[in-house]
């Protein structure tokens, strides 16, 4: 059990559930008390196993959960949370990037600009959405919508879920670096409240390009990393399969990010992960996001910008002395 990944554990649970079901069926068909008792016992043990497993998820388990094929995506949360969502399209210069959706949303009686990275469910949608890898036109569409929100004094809520920015030739040609950099700059001084929630994969600069905000939140089993664990592993260990070790070394979990002071709050997921209960996850998310939006709405624009500036200026871990390393050699 100890060495199982979350995906293996889920497979194990499926088998276990089949066994329990079989026992129950025998018990009810043949009135077999022993079978009935065993079913009860196994059900109890199952719950304990799940508890135990989820109490000590590894960083790699979090990575796998964040990438889980059934993980809720932005549009799943939109469906669960929003009374209205009018999706808007296009960067007004080149195209409309399917890897990011955005538009007017009504949530808890509030109008906000909701922008989220979006993967696809089936192969066709995945291709259309480029597996969540945003292109330059995606960042530019997002910025257009954020600037519109600023003009009309609406808060911006972003959902982060990407393996990274699109690394292909056409994206380099159209300035993927510039597009991300510009978003970082403009989001850092956007004159309206902004909240970013990492709901799945927080893949390096591609994630950050939508995540410079007054509040950065993470779902319990999401992760956020400067480089994909596999990429780190291939540099660090010259072995891309050692992603689990790299994930641990880089401390990519929501709990790590909170400890490092880089995020504001972790949004709890139901036991077993968000995909097992989207409604509850969405409810938790709404509660936390609303709490922060309420606080931010109470600030003047000047205070908002000032607090965000302080927050950004303070990022980093360093010492005011160089002695340690000088003497270490």
């Amino acid at each position, binding site marked *: 059990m100890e060495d199982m990944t979350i995906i293996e554990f889920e497979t194990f649970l499926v088998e276990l559930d089949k066994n329990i079901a079989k026992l129950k069926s025998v018990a009810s068909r043949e009135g077999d008390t022993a079978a009935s008792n065993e079913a009860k016992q196994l059900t109890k043990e199952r719950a304990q196993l799940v508890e135990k497993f989820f109490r000590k998820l590894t960083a790699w388990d979090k990575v796998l959960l964040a990438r889980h094929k059934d993980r809720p995506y932005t549009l799943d949360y939109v469906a669960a949370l929003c009374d209205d969502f009018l999706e808007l399209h296009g960067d007004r210069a080149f195209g409309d990037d399917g890897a990011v959706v955005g538009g007017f949303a009504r949530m808890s009686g509030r109008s906000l600009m909701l922008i989220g990275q979006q993967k696809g469910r089936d192969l066709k949608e995945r291709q259309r959405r480029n597996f969540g890898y945003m292109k330059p036109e995606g960042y530019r569409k997002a910025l257009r919508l954020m600037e519109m929100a600023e003009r009309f004094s609406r808060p911006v809520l972003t959902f982060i879920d990407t393996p990274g*920015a699109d*690394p*292909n*030739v*056409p*994206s*380099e*040609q*159209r*300035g*993927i*670096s*510039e597009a*991300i*950099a*510009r978003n*970082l*700059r*403009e989001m*850092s*001084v956007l004159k309206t409240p902004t909240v970013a929630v990492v709901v799945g994969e927080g893949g*390096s*600069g591609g994630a*950050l*390009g939508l995540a*410079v905000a007054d509040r950065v939140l993470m779902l319990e089993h999401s992760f*956020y*990393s*400067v*480089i994909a664990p596999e*990429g*780190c592993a291939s*540099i*660090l260990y010259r072995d891309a399969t050692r992603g689990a070790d790299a994930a641990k*070394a*880089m*401390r*990519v979990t929501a709990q*790590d*990010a909170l400890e*490092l002071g*880089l995020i504001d709050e972790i949004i709890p997921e139901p036991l077993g992960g968000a995909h097992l209960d989207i409604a509850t996850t969405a409810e938790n998310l709404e509660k936390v996001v609303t709490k922060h939006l309420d606080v931010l709405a109470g600030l003047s624009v000047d205070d908002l910008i000032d607090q965000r*500036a302080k927050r*950004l*200026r303070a*990022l*980093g*871990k*360093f*010492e*005011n*002395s*160089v002695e*340690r*390393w*000088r003497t*270490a*050699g």
Partner: protein
Amino acid sequence: MPDWFKRSKSPEVPEGAFVKCTGCNAILVTKDFERDNKVCPRCGHHHPLSADERIAMLADEDSFEEFGNDISATDPLAFPGYAQKLTTGHADESGRNDGLVTGRASISSRPVVLAISDFQWGRLAGTMGSVFGEKFAIATDIALEENRPLITFCASGGARMQEGLVSLMQMAKTSHAVAKLRATNIPYIVVLTHPSTGGAVASYASLGDVIFAEPGATVALSGERVAAQAQTQKVPANYRTAEFALEHGMIDRVVHRRDIQSYIARTLLFMQSPSK
């Protein structure tokens, strides 16, 4: 070792008085080579320079006053091998605390702030960690307080993996610093040198009012291997170079190293001469 690292290594020295160009293998007289700021007169290859060499080339004589050298990295994740690299870096002859060197200087008598990347420091490939971010932010603060243009030379492998998410945040920190310059109309000039990649170009290094680049410098978001793996289509011959970036509208000019000081001075003249 990444490919760009190999390509950018210093020229081999067959004899003390001669160097071999890594671009065309020509044997050059060291004295001439140094005088030419390490640009091969035969093939034009721009060899790497240290931050001190850049400063000497750029700033008015004796005008450089360094700042920000009193802070250092903390290895916040206790990341494998990082402490060793930091120790090595701090032991290097430059006496620097990071691959970013910051200070006041003047260029053609105009007061400026410089933030110059040194790719070699700590064998950390000019990566952006917390010290990089803080020094860049201090440079910006001083530029703002003293109304000095900020001029940065980029040479970077990107964010510093060894500081994990903390280093990713330096992209936000430096980009915000640029936003403050922009809001107060303080000139911000970027020079991209080999290699300018990853988090650096996806933040402060793509945000210059004016962006120059050295000929042949690698300029790209993705590392070479990632790029190679990801490609499903034909890759242009000059892919990931300064010339490619120019062709696609991302930079203002590719500028030969001997001209860069004058291009910066002319740019400052435009931005700062009194309005008529």
